[in-house]
């Protein structure tokens, strides 16, 4: 048998990640109602048997609650990551192509965003939107575009120097057409990797900000809220309320991080030997 090499690994990881997303999202929708069902005859059960993640103080099934919570977080994460990546693409390209002033301005904004600790900026943005769903999505989207924008800016600057682009300019091709025909295809891999890698960070920050109490109302059981509620019951020894939801969250983040990283390595031309 052939040895498993990096490329197969990457393909498998990406496949697993997408499948995982799909399953969780579908499960989240299927169990949306059930996650809210309370039943005092089965409250505070430790994990095992019928309830593999145990139940909480209201007798809610923690497994189902975790699934719906995670699917909620994933949806917010995807939305925020997409907005963030597109923002990064637009600003990165603008910075590299629209002249010195635009470049300085955008670089300045990047420094500005990076100067405020992420969580603090999230709190501010969430506050600006009157706390709630919109605040979380906008907040996460607005805090995650900076590094990808830098990468894209650098990439475009390099492309601009490339011979074939210069040739196209000499031939009188319009800026827009050059950008569309020659630059975007080169930027796409970078963009894709950026998008995939932004997603786990978006989820992490979404969980953090909801954990702190900003954003979603308690009836919407996002992972952060489940974990924040579990805090009150920790001292009573109900460890399962915090352990499993957190583990699943970490698993999701790791999966996408590893998948994204391995794709990035694969697309890096210097790595063909590995």
């Amino acid at each position: 048998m052939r040895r498993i090499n990096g490329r197969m690994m990457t393909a498998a990881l990406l496949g697993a990640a997408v499948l995982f997303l799909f399953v969780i999202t579908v499960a989240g929708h299927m169990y949306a109602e059930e996650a809210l069902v309370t039943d005092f005859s089965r409250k505070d059960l430790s994990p095992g048997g019928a309830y593999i993640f145990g139940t909480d103080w209201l007798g809610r099934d923690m497994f189902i609650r975790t699934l719906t919570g995670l699917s909620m977080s994933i949806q917010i994460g995807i939305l925020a990551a997409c907005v963030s990546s597109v923002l990064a693409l637009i600003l990165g390209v603008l910075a590299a192509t629209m002249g010195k002033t635009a470049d300085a301005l955008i670089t300045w904004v990047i420094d500005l965003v990076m100067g405020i600790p992420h969580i603090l900026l999230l709190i501010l943005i969430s506050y600006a939107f009157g706390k709630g769903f919109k605040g979380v999505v906008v907040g996460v989207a607005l805090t995650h575009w900076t590094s990808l924008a830098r990468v894209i800016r650098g990439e475009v600057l390099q492309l601009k120097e490339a011979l074939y682009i210069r040739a196209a300019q000499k031939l009188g091709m319009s800026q827009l057409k050059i950008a569309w025909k020659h630059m975007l295809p080169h930027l796409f891999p970078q963009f894709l990797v950026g998008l995939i890698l932004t997603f786990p960070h978006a989820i992490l920050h979404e969980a953090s900000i909801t954990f702190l109490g900003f954003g979603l109302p308690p009836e919407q059981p996002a992972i952060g809220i489940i974990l924040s509620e579990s805090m009150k019951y920790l001292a009573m020894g109900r460890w399962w309320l915090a352990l499993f939801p957190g583990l699943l969250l970490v698993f999701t983040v790791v999966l996408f991080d590893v998948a994204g990283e391995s794709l990035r390595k694969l697309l890096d031309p210097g790595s063909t030997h590995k």
Partner: protein
Amino acid sequence: MTDKKIILDIRNFSVSFEQYDKGFSRTGLPVIRNLDVTIHEGEMVAVVGSSGSGKSLLAHEILGILPYNATMGGELLYDGEILTKERQKALRGNEIVLVPQSTAFLDPLMKIGPQIRKGKKDRASREKLNEIFQGYHLKEEVQNLYPFELSGGMNRRVLVSTALMGNPRLVIADEPTPGLHMDMVRRVMSHFRELADRGAGVLLITHDLEQALEVADRVVVFYAGTTVEDADVSDFGSEEMLRHPYSRALFRALPQNGFQFIKGTQPYVKELPEGCPFGPRCEQCIEACKGEIPYREVRGGRVRCICAK
């Protein structure tokens, strides 16, 4: 050829890298195959080939500093014995030394003096370095400079100085004169000639035949990862003396012979033809050239061409 002792003998050497092909399969990439070079004590041998022919790897393989994903084959003899990893480790930097292309090979954050002494501070190494610097007319203050502060003229002498800290018996100079003025080239080359005259074997790796002819004793012509001819410098006096059609092509491309270039380009390692790598560009190519081609002695030199007489 000289009767002096052979210091380095490379026989039928090959290097290949693991690399991804299209899709999910991995293949070995034979960057060097059929490489044969011998160097005697006090002799200066130039390996000449155009860029991309795998010349630098030759230097790295002798020193044992190839990256981990490289696989080697063939024989490497130093001073009559097989050059094992352990021997390479013990000898490099002392008996076998490398002189790099440029100061980019120096640590930008370490002062010249300590860097050449490899961080050693003892009296003996200090005195030795001072002596070497005097020999090259470098002031002692230069030792306190950082690489970025060296002037162009100092660069080469500093780089050559690094070689002399040990007791070199084999000096490998990898493309030591990139983009230099011919005047400067002569000066740098004279340093190497000097080392050879003191008894060390010198392996000069270069793409510039003209330079090689100026200082070397023998020229080994390298094409697409293969040594195609091993000739005395005097053989380059006329085209007929040369044995391989590629050597002759190089000869005709020299300025004094009219800058005549042949068509085509050196094949990429992945698209090597069967048999003779020069086949597709060769006018004398026959069917038998697609088979195994031995490296054989012809008129005192060696050649890898079945048509050579």
